[in-house]
């Protein structure tokens, strides 16, 4: 506004020092709202005679767009570099160094925000709501790690994600979890992903951000509950490698799916697996799988087939039950949306004495609900409908996840070498140095003829496998 006086006609005399000021103030408060609406001021801004210059209000700019592009650039460079370090250099030291950089940049400098994990919700909201537009940078943060995973697996987890880097930093004494626990907890990320997408697409909440355990640490400020959760996870992370990544991270669930299709994968050995059994110990996440000759005995095969048939038969039932649960969940979850919550409070028509006991902001909110009831109530009804649909889909998704887990229990893959599970491997490069072949490659172990006599040589391979560099799903010619 350039010339306030031209717009605001003088209405009242300025209050002086006398106690009349208060009287005038009260008159203003009661009379003015009725007399002057909108752009008129109670006290015209003064004409200064002393040459007083009005201070200029400073408006600190928001974070520049170019900085946003810098984040995107850093992400892409870090992704490429991490992939090269894991596949080309096969260097644990390099991966660690890069992950420390990512922890400092994406963690403590960017305070955990912008992040690929949360971007899932932005994409869901952009697909679910007409009012929200997806910023391009956020779109890249969502898509780039997934695209890389389609070809190289989870190199994002290795050295780009600050959450992973932080948990890797505290890991001192990894213990191996029982298989059933590992496998059972492994479905949590998929369910969390479903919940996160449900709440984000309906515009109710960004639960993945709200319940992020490490962002309070990056910001050095946050709610007590989340600070404690982060602390507990880090304490757990002393002994259980990357607990958040393995059993909670919703983006990890997407990366799992993408890396299952990856064109190339991390192999422990650079050359030929001698089945020396040294590498499984080196993986703190227990993802290196032993060679498996598959189900050879007919009885085992019959049992496995029967299990598979039962699991397949149970699939529709599991999905149906879960879908019903999701529908009920959607009804409850609608209350998480502030608009629905307010409309419900308003429709409940609390007695005046109950309203008087509410904290001031809640009373003010009820006042707004009363003024805007005509828009608020239909909007709340619409949101509830959306929530029921979204809850139904969430239930179907959860049922599908559980069903697929049941089916996969009976599946046995044939493998001829020690190989990391491609969906669970973080590409952290820890296992490489445990492989004698790698040590020879690096020149850490000399390769004289005396030692070399035991080494397998291409052509005269003592292994029952004719294709050492294969994808590890087992040779068919046995």
């Amino acid at each position, binding site marked *: 506004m350039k010339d306030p006086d031209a717009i605001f006609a003088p209405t009242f005399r300025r209050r002086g020092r006398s106690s009349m000021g208060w009287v005038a103030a009260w008159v203003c408060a009661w009379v003015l709202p009725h007399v002057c609406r909108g752009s008129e001021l*109670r006290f015209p801004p003064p004409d200064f005679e002393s040459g007083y210059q009005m201070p200029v209000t400073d*408006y600190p700019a928001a974070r520049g767009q170019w900085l946003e592009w810098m984040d995107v650039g850093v992400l892409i460079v870090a992704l490429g570099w991490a992939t090269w370090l894991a596949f080309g250099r096969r260097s644990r030291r390099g991966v660690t160094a890069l992950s420390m950089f990512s922890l400092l940049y994406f963690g403590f400098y960017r305070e955990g925000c912008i992040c690929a994990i949360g971007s899932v919700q932005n994409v869901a909201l952009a697909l679910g709501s007409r009012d929200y537009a997806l910023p391009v940078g956020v779109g890249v943060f969502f898509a780039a790690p997934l695209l890389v995973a389609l070809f190289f697996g989870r190199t994002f987890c290795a050295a780009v994600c600050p959450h992973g880097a932080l948990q890797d930093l505290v890991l001192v004494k990894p213990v191996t979890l029982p298989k059933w626990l590992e496998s059972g907890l492994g479905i949590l990320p998929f369910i969390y992903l479903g919940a996160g997408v449900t709440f984000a697409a309906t515009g109710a909440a960004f639960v993945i951000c709200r319940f992020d355990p490490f962002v309070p640490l990056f910001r050095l400020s946050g709610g007590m509950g989340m600070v404690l959760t982060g602390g507990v996870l880090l304490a757990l992370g002393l002994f259980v490698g990357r607990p958040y990544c393995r059993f909670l991270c919703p983006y990890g669930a997407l990366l799992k799916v993408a890396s299952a299709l990856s064109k190339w994968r991390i192999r422990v050995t650079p050359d030929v697996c001698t089945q020396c059994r040294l590498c499984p110990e080196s993986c703190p996440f227990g993802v290196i799988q032993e060679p498996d000759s598959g189900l050879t005995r007919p009885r085992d095969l019959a049992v496995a087939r029967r299990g598979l048939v039962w699991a397949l038969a149970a699939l529709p039932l599991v999905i149906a039950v879960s879908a019903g649960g999701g529908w009920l969940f959607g009804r409850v979850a609608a209350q998480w949306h502030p608009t629905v919550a307010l409309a419900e409070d308003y429709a409940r028509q609390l007695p005046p004495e109950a309203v008087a006991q509410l904290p001031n902001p809640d009373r003010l909110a009820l006042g707004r609900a009363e003024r805007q009831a005509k828009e608020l109530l239909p909007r709340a009804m619409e949101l509830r409908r959306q929530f029921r649909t979204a809850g139904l889909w969430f239930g179907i998704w959860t049922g599908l996840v559980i069903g697929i887990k049941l089916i996969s229990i009976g599946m046995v893959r044939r493998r001829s070498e020690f190989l990391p599970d491609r969906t669970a491997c973080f590409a952290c490069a820890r296992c490489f140095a445990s492989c004698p072949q790698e040590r020879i490659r690096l020149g850490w172990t000399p390769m004289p003829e005396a030692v070399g006599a035991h080494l397998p040589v291409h052509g005269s391979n003592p292994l029952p496998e004719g294709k050492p560099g294969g994808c590890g799903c087992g040779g068919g010619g046995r």
Partner: protein
Amino acid sequence: MSASGTPMDPNTRREFLRNGLRVAGLTGAGVAVGVLTHHTASADTVWQIDPRKCLNCSRCATQCVLEQSAVKCVNWFPICGYCDLCTGYFEPQPNGLNTGAENQLCPTSAILRKFVEDPYFEYTIDESLCIGCAKCVEGCRLFGNGSFHLQVRHDRCVNCNECAIAKSCPGDAFYRAPAHDPYFHFTA
């Protein structure tokens, strides 16, 4: 899975499936990008408060995820009345119109009162002390011109996906402003 006569080596079969699914995934990603570009903002948005909707409820002081709320009070001088008895500065019925702590409405003494010329006083806000409680905003709105107003300060705001204050704002006063123009304008 017999030893011989398999139509396709399982390795090759899996590889074929995997390749097919990867191509499908890439195609899906391409389609998703296509859909989302219709729905994408080239510029970012940030949070801001619409003072016309703000109800001065004081939640901005407590709900922000930051230890020090990113919301601060700002005096918009062009509409400030420069009142001697500033109802944003003084408690109701102050002992005297002076800077005594007992007279001040602001719990952290963040408002500085400076004599300009008779009978005008300038009120500036020490942002490092302001907690965004909106007590002064309420006083200024009730009896004054309403030049005190709350703003999301963008040197502090971390621009959460889901603004914790916005979620609990009783007036629904938070909106997303374009990042290149992140402050509310009083007049069109």
